[in-house]
């Protein structure tokens, strides 16, 4: 934690996140700073949008619904978030009900980290089966079916939650990726990796995060824990998406260099790789450069046709507003 560096407040976290997302090298401070500023920008953008939505709703404080609204098109993420919130509820109640103290806290902590990494297993929830039954409240979205009707009947247990399936699919994909990544890791590396998975912008850094994200400035209200958690999740997603995209950019660049006779460097890389037979491969790789990140960001900000559709056959110029980076992750991958 480089407290001195005013800008780079999350350098370690970002490095860890990038590592989790596949960046094996040691990213330079410039890169992390860039990513941080991007993330900050995105968070602030989200907050602004949420405030607008909340105002439109007639509410002074932003709620989870507003955040959900922002990412409503990303079904997988929505379902993950809902799941997360549900389980958070469960955990809290479990924590409240059987006062085991540190154990439960550890559970929650683990669960949170797991969530961040996409591992939402039954593990932490397993002990509180009864609690789950009773307390697992559905996180309702305003556009869901139950809001169609005036009455809200209690859930029937046998109703299969299809979102879960969907979410499970996404989760499995993530797990698979993580598995691929960790397949050849040594024990130490894995430990490091799992440490890195717990990196979060918000976990136990709530105050710093609020400050960093400009809560006091952008929105007056005191954000709820849920919002902070969701933002934590989303920030992780942003970093991950950016990193993956940047890696892809770098890959393409390397490929281009290799084919278009960046001769010396290519051979150097080759030598490096060959030499890296006995070295940990991640160290052999060059880290992502700020340029890659910028390019990745540009790509992720690229407008799509849908936003421009109504401007076809007009002479208006489409001014794309800032887009949330995480939205396109699935489309891209």
């Amino acid at each position, binding site marked *: 934690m480089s407290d001195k560096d005013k800008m780079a407040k999350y350098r370690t976290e970002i490095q860890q996140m990038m590592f989790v997302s596949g960046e094996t090298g040691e990213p330079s401070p410039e890169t992390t700073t860039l990513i941080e500023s991007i993330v900050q920008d995105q968070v602030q953008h989200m907050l602004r949008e949420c405030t607008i939505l909340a105002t439109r709703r007639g509410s002074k404080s932003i709620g989870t619904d507003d955040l959900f609204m922002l990412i409503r098109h990303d079904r997988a993420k929505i379902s993950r978030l809902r799941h997360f919130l549900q389980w958070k509820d469960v955990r809290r109640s479990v924590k409240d009900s059987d006062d085991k103290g540190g154990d439960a806290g550890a559970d929650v902590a683990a669960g949170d980290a797991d969530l961040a990494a996409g591992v939402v297993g039954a593990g932490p929830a397993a002990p509180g089966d009864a609690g789950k039954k009773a307390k697992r409240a559905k996180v309702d979205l305003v556009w869901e079916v139950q809001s169609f009707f005036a009455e809200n009947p209690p859930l029937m247990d046998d109703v299969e939650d299809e979102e879960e399936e969907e979410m499970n699919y996404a989760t499995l994909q993530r797990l698979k990726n993580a598995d691929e990544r960790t397949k050849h890791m040594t024990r130490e590396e894995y430990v490091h990796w799992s440490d890195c998975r717990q990196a979060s912008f918000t976990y136990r850094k709530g105050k710093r995060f609020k400050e960093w994200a400009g809560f006091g400035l952008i929105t007056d209200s005191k954000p709820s824990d849920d919002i902070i958690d969701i933002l934590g999740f989303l920030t992780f997603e942003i970093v991950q998406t950016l990193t993956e995209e940047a890696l892809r950019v770098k890959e393409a660049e390397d490929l281009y260099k290799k084919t278009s006779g960046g001769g010396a460097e290519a051979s150097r890389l080759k030598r490096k790789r060959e030499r890296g037979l006995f070295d940990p491969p991640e160290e052999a790789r060059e880290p992502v450069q700020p340029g890659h990140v910028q390019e990745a960001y540009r790509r992720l900000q690229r407008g799509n046709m*849908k936003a421009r559709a109504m401007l076809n056959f007009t002479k208006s110029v489409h001014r794309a507003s800032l887009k949330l980076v995480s939205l396109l992750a699935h489309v891209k991958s």
Partner: protein
Amino acid sequence: MSLPSSRDRQNYARPLPNVPRLRTPNASMSDEAMSNGSHNNNLAEGLETAAEDDPRVARWRENYLRTEARITALLGGDHQHDGDDGEAAQTADQPAMDAPAAHDARPTATPKKAARTIDEDDYGDDDDADEEDDTCTSPLLAKSAPNGIGCPSIDAPSLQISSLSSKLGIESIAAPSAEQPKSADDLRKKLQQDKEADEEAAKRSFHTMFYTLESDRDAMLEQQKLDELDRQVETEMSGQSAATPAPGASTAPQQGTLSTTNLGASSLTLKHLIARIDAERDKVKASDTQLRSLISEVRKNRSKWANEDRVGQEELYESMEKVIMELKAGEHANPFLQRVNKREAPDYYNVIKQPMDIGTMMKKLKQLAYKSKKEFVDDLMLIWANCLKYNSASDHPLRKKALYMRKETEKLVPLIPDITVRDRADVEAEERRMRNGDADADGADDSEDEEPIMASRGRKAPSKGGKGGNAARKAPPAGLEGTPDQESKPAVPTLNHAVSNLKNEFLRADSEMEGSVNGFSTPPPGTLTPIGPNGLLRSGAHGSQADVSEADGTGASVSGFTEEDADLDDLEYKTWKQVTKKDRATIAAERHRLFRDDQLQPDEPAIMRSKAGMRRWARHRKQAIEEGISGASASLADVKDGVQTTTSQSLAEGIAGEEERQVPDYYDPVCTIPDLDERLQWIEDSQGHVIQQHEEYMRLVPSGQFTAPDSALAKKMESNMRQMQETRKICAKIGIVKQMQLQSQMYQNQFQKYDPRPFIEADIEPVVVSEDGPVMAPYVCRAALQRSVGKIFYHAGFEEFQPSALDAITDIAGDFFQKLVASFGLYREMPKMKSDVTVPDANVTPANWVPRFTQEEAIMHSLQVNGVDLESLETYVKEDVERLGSKLSGMHDRMRSYYAELLRPALDNAGADGSGAFNDGSEQFVGGDFAEDIGEDFFGFKELGLDKEFGVAFSVPLHLLQNRMHKAYQSQNTNNIATTGTLMEEPAKFDSVSVQNVTNQIGLMRSWFLIKLRQNDNQSLVEDEDLPPKQRFPKPRLPPTGKISSPRKRPLREQQQMARKKRKLDEEKDETGGNDHNSSSHGSFMKGLGKPVGKLKLEMPQKENQNQNVAEPEKDDGSAVGMISPESILAA
């Protein structure tokens, strides 16, 4: 034949020998002589026009053109051109006459050249029709075709000359006597035909060419000028009209065979008629004789020129008038119409000593100042020569006009019979003299025989034989105007004078012979021989005559200048202009009348559509279509057919008295008939009834045009929406139940029954259209789109929405779809690209061009460009439609179970029996069996054995026990009656008790009813239920125990109750003294007691039919128990 004319006789009377001898040198010499003459003329004319092409160059060019044409002809396999060639060769026999005969006479330096020129002309300028017309109508075609073919195509000129001349010589030798009149006839006819062909071509071009109207004004002005001229001449003449000899009766003495013989001057007056009759000869059912007599009848008394005392005047003047009319009408005639004004050209009369103009000529004509053709022609030529002389600058515009007019003149002059007008006395005197002199001559008898006839007709055609005798008399006018001839024609070269004179001799021999022949119907062979000597006699003698022939002879070369002078317009247009000039002028004048002084003249007659005009239009159209069908490459026969049909039509029409206008249809726009759909035509059947055709094209707009198509997606969405409605229904019930649980007091209309109606897309009313295309109805389309948007709204969960939101979304959606379709159109209409693979087209020709995008690609592109991809569409269908359906049904189940739980709070077995038990909104439950669950015979029905009797488990639903719920339920569930009413029909309502049917009541009650009726003024009594809600009695209340006390169950005590009630009633009656009617009195009486059960029972059937089963059995004793229940309750 049967009417031998005086002219015949004359010729018979004067047979001249040695025609063969004469003709032969003529034929053989003509080449040389003509070439010399023309050469000289060329030189001479060169003085007038500075620039002339090198004759050799011209010759080469012609040769080249000719060869080209031949090659194309050969390649084209078209023998017509050979025919032309042959014809041309044949016509070379009379070069002086023939050259002008060509439509557009080109330089004819030699006879051979004349031939070439014609040939070339036919290729270069005339359109096919013209050419074909020429060839097909030319009687020479058949004869001359072989000759033409025989002609080597690339021959050297000299070779050709020899061959031509030898051939001509042979021909003229072979058929010397017959050939001449024939060719003269043909010549005349050919001139006519050419003219007609021109007109025909121009007319044909009506359908194919559009000429702008800019020349109309000129035409109109010219025509006005002409008319003015006429008027002027008329007025000037009117003073002298008294001096004009009164026209005598005259007939056309000479009518040849219509098809072969010309009719002399009559051919000018009646030429159209005759030509048509000729063309349709086989269709005319009349012998030649009849026809001829007919025509002579028609012509009788017709001519204003006819004068008994002036022999030949009618013919001569008629033809002269024709010629001058024709010339006058020409488009270039304008400057020559009137005398040159001294103001315009001050020095004119210095230069021109003998001014002449058409107006003056007309005057002279009217004054009968012309004695012979020659004088007339001299005057004409004088006009042009004056002009050429005065305007000596070679590029002067008037020169062109003058040259053109001269050319025209030369074309027309041969049509004038060479007749010298003589006094009758002279003629007769000469006749006598001649008869005396040539008494032994052939045919003298004939002529003598004919004499009386001729005399009786008062008409005698002068022959050229008389010319010599008349020379002296002719002299004065010739002197008058003939002297300037020398001046006006300084071109005659003195060097070659002898030669030209020599040539002129022969020429004149020809022309004079023709002139005389003009009058002959069928001159027998050999009769022409006398011409020669006469010609010889005169040729040297009269210089003026030489001039005439000079003019004739030089005609060809003179006309050559016009070519160089390059006509202002192309020939076709010129012909067109000329043909249409008069009518155009008329039409323009008509139009002009309306807009005179640059403003609309309201008083002028409007230009109206006329029946004749419309008929004409239709005919032209048909004609054009026919020609269009026959096509450009139509064979000769085709064209012939076409011509025949058209002429037959126009013949018929012409007889019908319809004037034929020589203008294209677009000059007569009011008479055009718009293209009518066949279905709209006025067609009558055999009975004369109009056939209604609207069934064939009026059609209903097929239904479903404005409703959503019946697709799988739409069905799914519909079912989703139905599901939502059902769920909402349950929702509403839940809400009511919840409310009932909270609220202590209920109001009558507190709960609105939620009864959504199913969605039905209304289609438009039946609309009749006449076309097949899409119905363009923006408002309807928008409404339909709005409806669809509304459905999507509902499908998305909005039960209701603001109209403004609906409008906004509709507009956006419309906009989006427009863009989508527009981009689709763009992709569709991308320029085609060439492909390597030949695509078999629908047409036979395989096209290498394929659309840039296939349909599918175009759709995908336009979707993509508008931000839609298939995945998102699929996701929508999967997520927002299909999964929504499953979610909705899940929600529905949840709602129902929730409702069920709400409805029976006391019973805990709610979820156990599963959702299947609640198929239609807890009806089973409501009519259900919870009382049995309790295990109590609630109403004691079992005890009564009613359950066995009806086979139904009688149990009272919960809400009956809880009055509040019951009422609420009733208010919302009135329709449940219908659903379960199938079990047992709802009984008919009791008739209200009235005076009429009171006797039907049981006797015990009757008196009471009567009292009630009396109180009610004999109005029928009102049932309690029908009272207004405020006056109604409160419903019976069950005690909190929920148990109905036993007296109700005890039938034994009914009588007792009845008795008691009666007693009470009586008491009451005494007390209240019939204040109100039944119910109110009861109400006051039973206050606080609650309604009797019997009352409840009575209204059961109406209220709800769950109770029907319960109520029914009690009805039996209902009448007995009637109103007793309060007492029974009291008693209990």
